[in-house]
């Protein structure tokens, strides 16, 4: 999976599930766990941008694999368009691995669209243990229909990338 030389390998014992007699506990170690961070927000024509940050656990890295968005028009509660442009920044490296991406490109409003074709990319991006990442949505200066929207950042908590469980420099 994702390798990064900044994180030395295998320095942290992996959580191990209890096993029945005769089983090799190593076979049942849990080294990854799928997880989703979400953000419920309100599209706006007046705010130039809105932001949301997430803190990653100290015990694991979080590897981002998929990003989805969708909106419901408040008056009808049916899905609608989602204006705006998304930037996602790793706060530890200050690297923005998504920059000004039109939300329409990852909008999952379609009733049958296989969203994995739209927004799952083959090289996932790891956020270091104890680090944080920020989503920034910039709105165009146009009329926005009153709606309630969600952004989800999917991926997995990864216990195998060698974080030590100790404080990292960027945790100070």
């Amino acid at each position, binding site marked *: *999976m994702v390798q990064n030389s900044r994180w030395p390998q295998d320095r942290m014992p992996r959580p191990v599930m209890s096993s029945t*007699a005769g089983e090799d506990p190593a076979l049942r170690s849990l080294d990854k*766990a*799928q*997880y*989703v961070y979400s953000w419920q927000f309100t599209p706006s024509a007046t705010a130039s941008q809105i932001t949301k940050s997430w803190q990653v656990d100290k015990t694991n890295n979080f590897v981002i694999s998929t990003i989805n968005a*969708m909106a419901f028009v408040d008056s009808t509660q049916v899905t609608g368009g989602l204006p705006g442009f998304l930037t996602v920044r790793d706060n530890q490296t200050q690297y923005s691995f998504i920059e000004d991406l039109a939300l329409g490109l990852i909008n999952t409003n379609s009733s*049958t669209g296989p969203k994995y074709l739209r927004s799952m990319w083959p090289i996932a991006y790891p956020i270091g243990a104890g680090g944080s990442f920020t989503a920034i949505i910039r709105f165009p200066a146009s009329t926005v229909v009153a709606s309630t929207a969600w952004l989800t950042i999917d991926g997995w908590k990864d216990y195998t990338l060698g974080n030590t469980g100790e404080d990292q420099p960027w945790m100070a």
Partner: protein
Amino acid sequence: MNVMQRRMLDVFEQRQSFYEVLLAGKTRKSSAGAPLKPIKVMSYTYSAQFTGVAAVALATNQGVQDSIDTAGNCDFLITYMSAAVFNNATQALISTPYSRWNFTDNWSQTPMFDAPIPVSISTGNGGFPYLLQDPKLIPANTTIIVTFYNDSTVGPIVQDANFAFGGYKIYY
């Protein structure tokens, strides 16, 4: 091989630890020391059903629950999630329902999503399921608790909902 099967294979090729389990199963010994005990993998789907769920305002954040007891003799690896939500009165499929969900299990006690999120953003729809890039492991003898939130107060619409967790039973 259709597109979906090809995509499933792609997921498994990226699932390093899944292959580690399979490979280990070919070489490890039983508790008695011999003979070799291969791991058996069987396709399976667990499901949860909700019927006649009344709408509650989004801000109230009130859901209803269903639970799934997994088999006691095998682990379960979730590789995809799917959902179908219906209008209870007409039995018509609601392709993008104004409703949310979340689930957790009594082993990890960690919700899949950090907060309830729209069904359509996280499950796909019927024949277009949401594929987990990193499959989620549910240990044997675990209870999966699914919570469903019908937020469709415009109407309002009483909803029926079905959730499916597709994947593999792993026998050790």
